């Protein structure tokens, strides 16, 4: 592998270019007209203008990315997250033209991209899944039948969904018909696939995921779990590792289930097994993300293992040099996502020109961002601006460092959600490590009623 093309933008493009520099590999960034002045374009050895701002004609356009590789003589592609990262056709196309796809095989992307197949595969190897319809339901009559068996509340999920989109909670039988139609319409629009299945809904659950690294020699290790319970409308806002206050042997069970699942399907590359943990401490497999995650830095900071580097090294055929339990798991790391979102206006996306920027630093602080003073946040893509990661020997130290970092952070010209994170860090339940999936709603309600 001599030269790697980054088929992505924003902070993750910067992150991957940095990994190339660390490994001594050439870096090429594919960019749309909206990202001409981006940091990744500036830092990479070379940049290729692949199309206009709409992702459909740039970051999601497979031919343009392949031509960009040909033009820049890249022999590998890292898709980052989002865009084409979980599109089996892209991984297949790369293989067909002799490019190394830095990620899993098309087979695994397709398996895990189909939520029903993924569920079935995990159930078959003994990984716990939520009670559900075990297949797409055809028509409202069959949905009602399955709903009676599963019980309320339940959740309707698009077979082709993911990333928190295409889901709908049904609390009572009377809501089922309307929600059924709504979810199908959304699924049709978003995924061009309106097949829906049902699953038990777990209220007041926790969202905990396990990071996996697997090489092509059958070595599978887990790098510990991440607690991603701080979410709003299924979009993660803050993550930490290890998950605080897990009851009994739950941590071990989650990690073992993740390794078992990845091993059983002979997965290769970095991947994440997501679980929902019920209030009574039962874990259920949700989905597997067959790509690099936004929140990968908390695991990197806790373990000292560079996940992007290892994705690349596994893709070029190297074996993992560490065995299970070797990674140092003694530290605690927390990440907050600074998004261009106006919390006061129902978290509406914002754009603008970054007029004044002060990024935090000091012991235990890492910032992954593509921001610089004068940067104009384009309106076409996701709202992630920066990830602040605080690490310490204990959760308490990491929390104090994060509070310090948020005090230092300034970004004028673009409305961000930084104040939400300041509120989160001050919350008693969050500080105590005792929080559930309703924490964001709870914090936002409290804030409104006290002002």
């Amino acid at each position, binding site marked *: 592998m001599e030269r790697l093309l980054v088929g992505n933008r924003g902070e993750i493009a910067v992150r991957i270019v940095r990994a190339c520099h660390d490994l001594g590999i050439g870096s090429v960034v594919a960019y749309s007209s909206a990202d001409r002045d981006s940091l990744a374009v500036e830092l990479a050895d070379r940049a290729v203008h692949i199309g206009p701002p709409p992702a459909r004609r740039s970051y999601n356009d497979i031919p343009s990315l392949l031509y960009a590789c040909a*033009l820049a003589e890249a022999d590998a592609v890292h898709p980052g997250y989002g865009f084409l990262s979980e599109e089996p056709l892209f991984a297949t196309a790369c293989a067909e033209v002799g490019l190394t796809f830095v990620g899993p095989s098309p087979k695994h992307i397709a398996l895990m991209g189909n939520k029903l197949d993924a569920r079935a595969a995990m159930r078959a190897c003994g990984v716990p899944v939520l009670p559900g319809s075990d297949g797409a339901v055809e028509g409202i009559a069959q949905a009602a039948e399955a709903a009676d068996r599963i019980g309320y509340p339940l959740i309707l999920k698009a077979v082709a969904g993911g990333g928190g989109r295409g889901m709908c909670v049904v609390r009572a039988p009377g809501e089922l018909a309307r929600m059924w139609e709504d979810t199908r319409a959304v699924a049709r629009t978003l995924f061009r696939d309106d097949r829906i299945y049902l699953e038990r809904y777990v209220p007041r659950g926790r969202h905990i995921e396990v990071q996996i690294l697997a090489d092509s020699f059958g070595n599978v290790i887990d790098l510990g779990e991440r607690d991603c319970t701080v979410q709003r409308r299924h979009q993660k806002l803050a993550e930490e590792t290890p998950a605080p206050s897990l009851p009994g042997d739950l941590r071990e069970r989650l990690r073992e289930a993740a390794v078992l699942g990845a091993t059983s399907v002979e997965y290769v590359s970095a991947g994440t097994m997501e679980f929902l943990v019920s209030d009574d401490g039962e874990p259920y497999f949700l989905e597997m993300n067959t790509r690099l995650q936004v929140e990968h830095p908390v695991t990197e900071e806790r373990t000292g293992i560079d996940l992007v580097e290892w994705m690349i090294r596994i893709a070029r055929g190297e074996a993992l040099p560490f065995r299970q339990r070797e990674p140092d798991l003694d530290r605690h790391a927390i990440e907050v996502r600074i998004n261009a979102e106006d919390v006061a206006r129902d978290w509406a996306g914002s754009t603008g020109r970054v007029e004044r920027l002060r990024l935090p630093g000091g012991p235990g602080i890492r910032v992954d961002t593509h921001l610089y003073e004068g940067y104009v946040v384009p309106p076409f893509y996701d709202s992630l601006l920066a990830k602040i990661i605080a690490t310490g020997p204990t959760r308490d130290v990491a929390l104090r460092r994060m509070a310090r970092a948020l005090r230092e952070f300034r970004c004028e010209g673009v409305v961000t959600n930084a104040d939400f994170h300041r509120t989160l860090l001050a919350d008693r339940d969050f500080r105590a490590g005792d929080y559930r999936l309703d924490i964001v709603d709870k914090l936002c309600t409290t804030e409104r009623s006290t002002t």
Partner: protein
Amino acid sequence: MTDLRATVEATGLILDLVRGSDVQRLVVQGDGVTIEVERSALPAASAARPSEAAPDAAAETTAGEPAEAVTAPLMGVFYQRPAPDQPPFVTVGQHVEAGEQVAIVEAMKMMNPVVAEHAGVVVRINVADGEVVEFEQPLMELGAVG
């Protein structure tokens, strides 16, 4: 964006750069502006001719009027001819009408026509047949008519 003051300033900087070097000819392209510096036999007599590219008399442009770059409508492979055994769409010095097809950019077997937005005279073709081109890469330059 064409900003006259910025163009003049940039031209000055380019002249400073070229002065004392061996460069014979330099073309700098930006948004809507092309600055060409061509050195005559006398070393110090560099001439800045904003947006004028004139290897032959037929392609003379009106002073100050920018040469129009025809750019790639998408990423793909540039072709000058409709088929390998056919003559090119255009050659240097040829007059083209607005809306006339001047090349092809092929992507995944789809032949996408490249069309001149304005009428003009083909001053230069920047890309060789069969080369991969980026989105909006200037493929050829058209001088203004008259």
